[in-house]
């Protein structure tokens, strides 16, 4: 693992850095790829850059992890799978109740 890392840093990274735009541009493309289809050129740039750049590779994996976890969290929260319940406060419950009553019995 350590050898592989060293090899990446010393040999591959200078080459991939030379061939592709800097990390700032690559992260923009990585984010864009989650909303729209990248062009072939853009896709190749990301692929090559990531071969040598562990940081942008992590960025990509982390964005995907966030996306996935967010989806799960929203579902769990909506259906209240946690023990801790999030509910309307008593005040707003009463406020809404009386506005419904008002509407129905006016």
């Amino acid at each position, binding site marked *: 693992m350590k050898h592989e890392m060293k090899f990446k*840093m010393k040999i591959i990274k200078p080459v991939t850095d030379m061939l592709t*735009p*800097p*990390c*700032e*541009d690559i*992260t*923009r493309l990585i*984010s*864009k790829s*989650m*909303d*729209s289809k990248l062009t072939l050129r853009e896709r190749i740039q990301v692929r090559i850059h990531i071969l040598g750049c*562990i*940081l*942008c590779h*992590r*960025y990509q*994996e*982390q*964005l995907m*992890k*966030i*996306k996935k*976890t*967010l*989806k*799960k*969290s*929203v579902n*769990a*929260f*909506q*259906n*209240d799978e*946690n023990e*801790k*319940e*999030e*509910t*309307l*406060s008593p005040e*707003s*419950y009463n*406020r*809404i*109740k009386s*506005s*419904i009553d008002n*509407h*129905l019995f006016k």
Partner: protein
Amino acid sequence: MISEDANPLNWLDEHGNYLFRYALIRVSERDIAEDLVQETFLAALKSYSSFDGKSNIRTWLTSILRHKIMDHFRHIYKSEKNKVDLKSGEMDDFISDGNKVGRWRPGYAPGDWTVTPDDRLQQKEFMQILKECLGALPDRIASVFNLREIEGLDTDEICKEFGISTTNFWVIMHRARTGLRRCLEIHWFDNTSTDTRDEA
């Protein structure tokens, strides 16, 4: 004729908290979520005669709430006071001059999240931090991000809805993701991922 569930008197007890949570996870603020729920019930009462009974009441109420949430986000996005400069601040993560321009700035680069087992990511605490990080995004950016990542609308729908160019949409989403990523790293992963930060 009216079934138990369809009786408007029962709506609040049967669906109130569900709708509240649905709104809260999206708008992040309790009083706004509560207002949206109230508006939803009132709108539902007014249009009850047009409810076709094909879907169940909760689905119908939720679709009304979704429209309220969309209106809310559109309003936030259009509001002058929420305007943020999309050019500035965005790229603190990267070196801005010299021969390493555009590379990750040491100390800001993504740490190693794989040291954290996957099941830890699903813990309540992580969800809590994720929610707080969402709440910390600038309102305007959060409104676009939420429609995309929570509501699941696609790029074209959002650009049309908000009247933004596709390019600006990508910039906003990138800002949101970068901010969220960094917030999570600081508040959740910080003590586990300091070893490999400076290798850029």
